[in-house]
């Protein structure tokens, strides 16, 4: 199999980040078309394409845009979420560094669709190279009249400001991101009201992912019908997957949705590192349920197939785990991540993530008991399903519980009481 490159067709060209190059490969054509359309027409095209948000939740993009109230006097805001940081996820960074103009183009189209005259590019603070690349592209776009007042004489104004985050994973959650942009701690907000009604500075706001904005220009340029025919019926288009872990060629790959998971691993990524047997795959970032090697055989990379396997495509991060990997260690490290990144507002998350991490640490050190394992599962039940403002504690559960249930023997083998029992048995046999 091969990649199907739509967003990333020119990503490897050394000049891909330059405006002149981007224009030479039909860059900004989609925006030029959109500037001649009414907002409703743009939203209709995006709706018809079937594009679903690429940040993790998979919400239909056109529908999200249509929630913005039309006739209210308040300003409207458009935000690009470039606060990528879920373990396993590193696809947006490549788009930001190498194809910043594609994102700007998508944002101008989105802004026109919802009637926003100001937008923000919220990028994670560690991405220094991306910050430079995007700022340069924004400056170039202003100079060329693609941003600012009266864009290309269309009468539409759109200003874009780059805003760097400061190392908080939670700011990838859209309401926490909005708080952060307002100069506050990154605490998620209670919903409703949803950002479409009351978001940034209490005004109607749309937040979309980098990959979502990067896709929009192609839909405008080539049409909704063209796009909806790619991929599967409910998951149209291509998607960027960032593959890490035990494969020969980790990296970012753009493939048609619906592609079998094993084809991605074996064909594009060159197979398993050192030809070790496959043990498991986390198919959509650390927060989604793990798949066993057996389950991987029937899993396709689309929303429906993942749902049938009781997991998700999430942020498009495929973590490939080879035989011999200590899953107690990896699960502990994931739990440590969520405990570190919990914002601390809600008790089930603040206490739960830390408690789960501590219990896993005990088990990892061989000091845990079967009661500790039961306690993790009991805690997990209280950390999910709407007990908190945002889904960070659900994400921690997703990273921990399915691994414990599917690979229980590995966790049990590390328990202290089990070790004691085995010692007794062997002592008994010896006597």
């Amino acid at each position: 199999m091969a990649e199907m490159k739509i967003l990333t067709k020119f990503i490897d060209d050394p000049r891909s980040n330059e405006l002149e190059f981007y224009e030479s490969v039909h860059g900004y054509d989609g925006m030029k078309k959109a500037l001649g359309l009414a907002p409703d027409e743009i939203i209709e095209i995006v709706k018809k394409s079937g594009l679903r948000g690429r940040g993790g939740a998979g919400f239909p993009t056109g529908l999200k845009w249509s929630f913005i109230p039309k006739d209210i006097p308040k300003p409207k805001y458009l935000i690009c979420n470039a606060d990528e940081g879920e373990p396993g996820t590193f696809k947006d960074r490549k788009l930001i560094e190498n194809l910043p103009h594609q994102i700007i183009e998508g944002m101008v189209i989105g802004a026109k669709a919802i009637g926003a005259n100001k937008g923000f590019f919220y990028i994670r603070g560690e991405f220094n190279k991306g910050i430079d690349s995007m700022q340069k592209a924004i400056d170039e776009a202003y100079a060329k009249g693609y941003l600012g007042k009266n864009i290309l004489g269309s009468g539409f104004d759109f200003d874009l400001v780059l805003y760097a985050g400061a190392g908080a994973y939670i700011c990838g959650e859209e309401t926490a991101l909005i708080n952060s942009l307002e100069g506050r701690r990154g605490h998620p907000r209670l919903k409703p009201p949803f950002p479409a009604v009351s978001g940034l500075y209490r005004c109607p706001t749309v937040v979309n992912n980098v990959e979502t904005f990067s896709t929009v220009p192609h839909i405008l340029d080539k049409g909704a019908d063209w796009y909806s025919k790619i991929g599967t019926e409910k998951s149209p288009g291509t998607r960027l997957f960032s593959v890490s872990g035990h494969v020969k060629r980790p990296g970012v790959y753009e493939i048609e949705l619906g592609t079998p998971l094993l084809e991605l691993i074996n064909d594009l990524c060159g197979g398993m590192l050192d030809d070790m047997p496959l043990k498991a795959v986390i198919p959509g970032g650390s927060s989604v349920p793990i798949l066993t090697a057996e389950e991987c055989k029937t899993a396709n990379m689309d929303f429906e197939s993942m749902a049938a396997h009781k997991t998700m495509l999430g942020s498009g991060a495929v973590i490939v785990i080879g035989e011999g990997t200590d899953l107690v260690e990896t699960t502990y490290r994931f739990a440590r991540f969520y405990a570190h990144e919990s914002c601390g507002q809600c008790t089930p998350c603040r206490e739960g993530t830390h408690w789960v991490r501590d219990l896993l640490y005990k088990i990892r050190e061989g000091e845990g008991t079967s009661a500790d394992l039961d306690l993790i599962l009991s805690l997990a039940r209280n950390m999910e399903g709407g007990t908190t403002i945002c889904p960070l504690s659900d994400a921690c559960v997703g990273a921990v519980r399915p691994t414990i249930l599917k690979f229980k023997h590995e966790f049990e083998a590390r328990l202290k009481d089990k070790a004691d029992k085995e010692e007794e048995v062997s002592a008994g046999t010896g006597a």
Partner: protein
Amino acid sequence: MSYQFSSESVSRLNKLLEMFPDKRSVILPGLYLLQKEQGFVDREGMEALAEKIGSPISLAQIYGVATFYTLYNKKPVGKYHIQICGTSSCYMRGNDKLEKHLCSRLGVELGETTPDKKFTLEEVECLGACGYAPMVQINDAYYENLTFEKMDEILRGLT
């Protein structure tokens, strides 16, 4: 004597104040400017920032923001701030071994600074470079697909 921003930073802050509909949004970029100037953020610097942004932004609000975000150093770090990613994807490609190697090369434990104040070594959560593991961030730059030899060569190049 209270903290004095450089004239360059003052003009940057003035620009930032025009850029946002609410001047509260200047807190995060303002803290960055402060950190860029002196390597970390402290009370005096935050007081100066509060004064620059003006009412109703108080020192307490800025302090609350600074302590929430990990990218703001609340105390001085070495000339080279080495942050090694400790998350699972990096672990699967050997970051734990690289971490031990770095500790022994620099003669410090995680979280410590070398006596000559040249290096600070820290383990951090996901840096979003999982496919290029193991990796470290040194000041503003990422170094990826590291081996012990590559790491040593990078350290030798830091003067």
